[in-house]
């Protein structure tokens, strides 16, 4: 596979690892952004242009800022008293390792079954638009309702009630 894939994969994994292991939470959020950017480039590698730009716009543009704001609002940037990891971190690690083992085994052992068409699909925004309006119009409407309700829900949940504890 191309060198670009390995390079970007290394950056993404490094970003993800840093996001999980760093002590200061804001550094974690910034490392997360690097991971998102790496993934966006992977999407472009896979010729999914629209998804790649949407990923940059939605994740780096909005979700990263949201996470960083949440960190600041909950004063997460000061280092916590106890350790950064929960007491039962070995168990968590073991479960994650097992999951990775299962996934890895499944991927590697199914080389024959996996499709491998190397034809480069050319996707134009027009096709995506038609697909959105044609075949996927129902999910589009559901997403619209979901996003509105999430918007209102998040505002109500995080809103500052007048009478409650300051």
């Amino acid at each position, binding site marked *: 596979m191309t060198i670009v894939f390995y390079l970007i994969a290394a950056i993404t994994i490094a970003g993800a690892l840093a996001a999980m292991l760093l002590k200061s939470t804001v550094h974690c959020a910034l490392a997360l952004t690097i991971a998102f950017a790496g993934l966006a480039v992977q999407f472009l590698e896979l010729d*999914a242009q629209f998804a790649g730009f949407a990923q940059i716009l*939605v994740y780096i543009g909005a979700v990263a800022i949201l996470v960083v704001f*949440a960190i600041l609002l909950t004063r997460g940037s000061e280092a916590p008293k106890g350790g950064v990891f929960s007491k039962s971190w070995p168990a968590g690690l073991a479960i*994650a390792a097992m999951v990775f083992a299962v996934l890895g085994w499944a991927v590697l052992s199914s080389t024959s079954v996996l499709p491998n068409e190397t034809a480069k699909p050319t996707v134009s925004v027009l096709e995506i638009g038609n697909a959105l309006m044609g075949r996927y119009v129902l999910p589009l409407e559901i997403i619209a309702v979901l996003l509105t309700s999430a918007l209102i829900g998040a505002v109500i*949940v995080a809103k500052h009630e007048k009478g409650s504890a300051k």
Partner: protein
Amino acid sequence: MIGHVTALQGYLLLAAVLFAIGLAGALTRRNAILVLIGIELMLNAANLNLIAFWRYGPHPEALTGMMFAIFSIAVAAAEAAVGLGLVIHIYRFTQTTDLGQMNRMKG
């Protein structure tokens, strides 16, 4: 073993690694926000899988994989917003985001 892996399997392995890292983070970190970050990573890994299968799948012109990934990006953004709203709300009452201390149902 690693030598003759196909392109699709490379992406699937990368997604598996990201998923495992996200899961490890979500399980081991104490700060609620970092658990959410872990979940975001897992979602992204799933997106990568979707698009990898779409790209190397039999007929990519059907656009199913990519549309699914775009919808999942939208849903993940909404989920992140609500999740962080909840974290801020909990913080307002318990003054802490440390998951270890959130063991009381009061409030």
